Every structure is written in C-alpha cells, then in structure tokens.
C-alpha cells in the first residue's frame, strides 16, 4: 500500500517534469531510457537511507517543477567574473547552453561541443560511467531528463581555464545540466564553476558532472557556490582517474538555502594524486551537505581531503567522507580530515568520516573535529582594539582560509578570499 503510494509520488513528480519536450536524439534515447528505468525502481530518498540521513529531500520532492528556457535574463553575469583572469566561458541558463553569452575557444587544444554534436562512441565511452544512478534517485533523474549537455575535451595543455557559469531564474523551475569534462593523455585543464541566481523561488537545480582524467593528465575543478535565496541545489560530480594523473576538486560554499554536493573520485590507475578541498559557512537556516567518496582501486596513489566549515545561527552542516582502499590498492597514502567551528548553540554539524580498507600496506588517517571559536584569541584581538565582529571574522577567515589557500589560480584565490571576507 505505502509502496504504491511512494511510487505514485515519484510518478507524479516525474510526469510534471516530463511534460516538457527535451531533446532526444538517437544516441541518447537509450541513455535517457536507462535513467527512466532506474527512477521507476527507486523511491524518493528519506532520512532512513544512510546516504540521505541528515538531508531531508521532501523540501524538493513536495513541489512540482517545469523546465524553462529563457530568451533573456535579468541577472548580471559580470558578478562572477574573476578579475585579471582570462577564461573561456560556457554559460548555461536554467540548464540550457547559451551560445550567445558564452565565449568558446577557437583552437585545437580544447574542444567544446554539445552532446548532439558528439559521436555515439564519444558518448558511450564517457556518459554515465561510474555514476551513482543505480542508488541515487537524483542522478537517475538527471540521466533521464538532463536539460542539455556539453562535452569539454582538453587535448593538450590549455592556455586558459574554462569558466562554466550556471544561471538560474524562475519559480518552480528545474534545471538539470549535464557536463562531461575530459583531459586526454598529457593534457592540463582547469575548470571553474560559478553560479548566479535571480528571482528564484522553489528552484531545483540538479546537476551532474562527469570527469575523465586521462593518463598523465591534470585537471583542477573549482566550484564556487554563492546562491541567493530560493535555490535547492543537488550537485553531483563523479571523476575517474587513469594512471599518473592528478585531479583536484575544490568546493567553496559561500551561501545557499539548501545544498547537497556529492563528489566522488574513482582512481583506476597507479601513481595518481587526488585532492578534495572544501569550505562552507552556513548561517541562518541554511543547510549545506557535502558527501564525498574517495575510492582507491589501484596501488601507489595518494589522496588528500580537507573540508572545513563554520556553522552559525540555526544552520546545519553535514560532512560525510568515505575513503575506500580496495584489495589490490597497496601503498596508498590517504588522508582525510574535517574540521568545524560551531558559532552558535543552535548550530548543528553532522560529521562522519569513514574509512574502509581492504589492503594491508597503506598509510591512512582520518579525523573530524567540531569545536568553538577560540575565545582567548578573540580576547587577544579585542585587546588590540578590534571589534568582536572583526576579531571573529578574522579568526573564521584564518580557519577557512587554510583550504582557500589551496587554490592554484592566484586571481581566483584572491576572489574567493575576498568573498569570504578575508584579505
């Protein structure tokens, strides 16, 4: 009885979305079908599911959504520009690629094209690989009904970073962008993802990005989340690394009503390096959830993960980091830590670092701390004439700054430091 009810709920939810005609062309018909099939076998996640224990999705699933293609936008994209940094730009408006607002490369090193322009082979070798479609309802939802997709292929060392700007606007709109990022052998690419939203209410942004880091290649992926009100965000990133490659994912959340980030890295080759850094500072009633998976499948690799957050007012922070070291993955160095400062008595932080090791010759550490701001340090700074607010801001900056300092692009680093109110 209740199961039928749940299924009906899912069907109702999906039927509203599916009312719109999304592009379906031959190559992708079966892919969308697979997503659809997965959805039908899944229920909405609840807090009884371990993966969603601290993030209630009813906020999202109780509403009905539609896709919305806009002819013009109200927002100002220059807000996310990074001063002094020349980038290629891909602008997606409510999940749809906007060529007019974009500025694409004109060289052989980097190729940017829509899925419609991709060959069957390109799509089948990259699309939905390692995706948590089977277990994650929202990934399956994206696979079935992604609004539009872009494939970015770096064939060599790219001269400029690619800045992907996601713009959101509207009420009860769903945006499901889907992007593939590929660094071929020996290539190097940095990607920056920024978001802008304006006039949003009950907006559901559900993106999926897949990353393929080829042999001996380098990829850096920087995400800056700075949402105005009215956005519910689920952002799923899945990366696969080949041998001798280097992948770093950085996630900086400035603000957002409700955000869930899933960042999963599968290391499928030897001698790889993987880095995961993140900072978050929920305030008010915000809810910021970061889930990561660091999966070591092959030997002789290293991974570093460090997430830091300050939680204020009645806000909630969630961190769940799983590190797997598989049976054959000997000689792995895997480090993970999550540090939090609770700035109010009503703030909540749920932190769960997890380590599953099946190999015996490994060096791993993980840990989590949640504490208060150092009152002694606040007093010291105040005794020099700083207001309590400035002293607190300076100490928060110092705390979160550690992971912001990891940004390798100086202009971007300055911008993010400034956004967090650090100098």
């Amino acid at each position: 009885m209740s199961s039928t009810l749940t299924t009906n709920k899912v069907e109702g939810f999906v039927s509203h979305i599916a009312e719109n005609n999304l592009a379906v062309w031959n190559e992708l018909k079966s892919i969308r079908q697979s997503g659809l099939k997965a959805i039908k076998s899944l229920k909405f996640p609840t807090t009884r599911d371990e993966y969603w224990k601290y993030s209630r999705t009813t906020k999202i699933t109780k509403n009905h959504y539609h896709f919305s293609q806009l002819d013009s936008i109200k927002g100002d994209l220059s807000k996310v520009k990074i001063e002094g940094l020349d980038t290629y730009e891909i602008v997606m408006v409510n999940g749809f690629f906007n060529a007019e607002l974009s500025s694409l490369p004109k060289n052989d090193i980097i190729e940017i094209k829509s899925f419609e322009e991709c060959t069957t082979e390109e799509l089948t070798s990259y699309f939905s690989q390692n995706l948590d479609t089977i277990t994650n309802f929202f990934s399956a939802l994206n696979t079935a009904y992604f609004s539009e997709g872009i494939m970015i292929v770096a064939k060599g060392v790219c001269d400029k970073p690619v800045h992907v700007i996601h713009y959101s606007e509207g009420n009860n709109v769903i945006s499901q962008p889907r992007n593939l990022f590929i660094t071929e052998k020996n290539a190097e690419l940095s990607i920056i993802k920024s978001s802008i939203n304006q006039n949003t209410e009950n907006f559901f942004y559900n993106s999926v990005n897949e990353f393929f880091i080829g042999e001996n290649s380098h990829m850096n992926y920087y995400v800056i989340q700075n949402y105005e009100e009215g956005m519910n965000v689920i952002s799923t990133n899945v990366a696969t690394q080949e041998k001798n490659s280097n992948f770093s994912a950085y996630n900086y959340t400035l603000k957002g009503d409700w955000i869930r980030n899933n960042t999963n890295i599968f290391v499928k080759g030897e001698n790889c390096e993987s880095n995961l850094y993140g900072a978050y500072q929920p305030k008010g009633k915000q809810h910021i959830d970061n889930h990561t998976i660091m999966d070591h499948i092959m030997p002789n690799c290293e991974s570093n993960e460090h997430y830091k957050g300050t939680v204020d007012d009645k806000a909630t922070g969630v961190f769940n980091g799983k590190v797997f070291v598989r049976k054959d993955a000997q000689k792995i160095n895997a480090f993970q830590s999550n540090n939090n400062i609770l700035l109010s008595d009503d703030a909540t932080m749920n932190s769960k670092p997890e380590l599953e090791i099946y190999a015996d010759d490994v060096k791993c550490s993980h840990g989590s701390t949640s504490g208060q701001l150092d009152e002694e340090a606040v007093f010291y700074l105040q005794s020099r004439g700083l207001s309590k607010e400035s002293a607190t801001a300076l100490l928060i900056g110092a705390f979160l700054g550690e992971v912001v300092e990891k940004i390798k692009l100086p202009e971007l680093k300055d911008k993010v430091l400034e956004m967090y109110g650090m100098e």
Partner: protein
Amino acid sequence: MISIKNLHASIDGKEILKGINLEVKAGEVHAIMGPNGSGKSTLSSVLAGNEDYEITEGSVDFMGEDLLEYSTEERARMGVFLAFQYPIEIPGVSNMNFLRTAINETRESRGEEPIAAKDFLAMVKEKSALVELDNSLLKRYVNEGFSGGEKKRNEIFQMAMLEPKLAILDETDSGLDIDALKIVSHGVNTLKNQENATIVITHYQRLLDYIVPDFVHVLYKGKIVKSGTKELALELEEKGYDWIKEEVNA
C-alpha cells in the same frame, strides 16, 4: 590617569582580587610584584576587560571615565594596552593584517581616516626596529612558531604601534635573556613620556634595573599589601617574599 578603588573580582565564584587600591598618574611607572598566584595577571585581565571575571565590588576610573563600563576593544581604543604574560599564537591571522585592522578601527572610533598604506609601513619599520623584531616575523601569523623572546618583543612592538596611554606589562621579562631584556626595556623606555603611564608586573627585581619604577607595590592574596619606592624591590630581591607573607598572615 587610572584610579582603582577597592576592586574585587572573582572567577567561577572564587574571589581572586580582594580589594585592590592603586593610583597611577601620567608620567609614572609603577611596578607590581608578588609571589605566583597572587592575582597579578588577574588584575591585568580585569583591567583589559576579560569577561571571564566577575567584578563584585569597586571601581576603576580611567581618565575620567568609568573603565569597567567599557568593552575590551573600547578600552583598547581609549588607550589601555596589555602586554600578555603568555601571548597566544593565532595561526592564519597575519601580524600586519590584524595590526592594520586594529589601528584603523581605533582611528575610526576617533573619527579619523584610515592610515595610509605608506604611513603604516613606515611606522612598522620604525617600531619594529625599536624592539629589533625581524620584519619577516611580522608577515607571519601572530606569534606562530615565535620563540618566547620573539613573542614578548612582538607585544612591545604592538604597544609601540598602538601608542597607548596606559601600558600594563605582565611579566614581559619572564623567559627573556639579558640581551632581550635590554631590548625590551629600551623599547618601553623610549615610548615613555609625560602623557602616558606604565604598570610593570614582574616577579624579579632584575627588570627594574632597566625600567626604573617610581613606585613598587606588592600584591599578595589579591591585595596590595605593601607599597614603596624602588628600594622595596631591592629588599624583596634580597629577602624574598616570606617576610611579607608572614606579615600578612600574622
């Protein structure tokens, strides 16, 4: 400049200061001595506005104002400076950055413009030279990885930058070798003038050879039990504190 009357303060219900009376005038140097645990650091913390302590009785007048009514940062901006006995390390906060903020917020509270970058740097150069503090240390995080002596010199450097009316030096000499002691004392003496005052808290007479006090007080069990001139310090050096303890406990 400052007039402390019958000051009582406690922490966690335990009374530490039990009626302090002290009057310091502009241009004067007062030394407060006393055995460990007598309440010297507590007095400095209370004057700096540490809210961990509860003031149960008494008053503090600072240049005509009721000091106890003001917050820590307001007191600092009014000209109260405390050189901490144990300066803490603050990783991630750069010395220069925080000092510039401190100076600018102080200026703002007085209705003044922020300090020009050029003037700030010139001031840093001059004042750090005064205490022979390596400029590379200033770019680092507050006290992080500093030696004991460097931390103490950094306190005096900050004092020089902030130009307080009343400086309270809480055992600035402890842990310093004789050279560092001379440097720190030279800094303090250079900053001294007829408009400001200094309270030097120390355990040893040694410092008072370099920073010569006008008055010496002995703090014991939360009270000033004896006051005199610099000869009192010499007497304490010679005889220790036992005779004072005996006098008080008798």
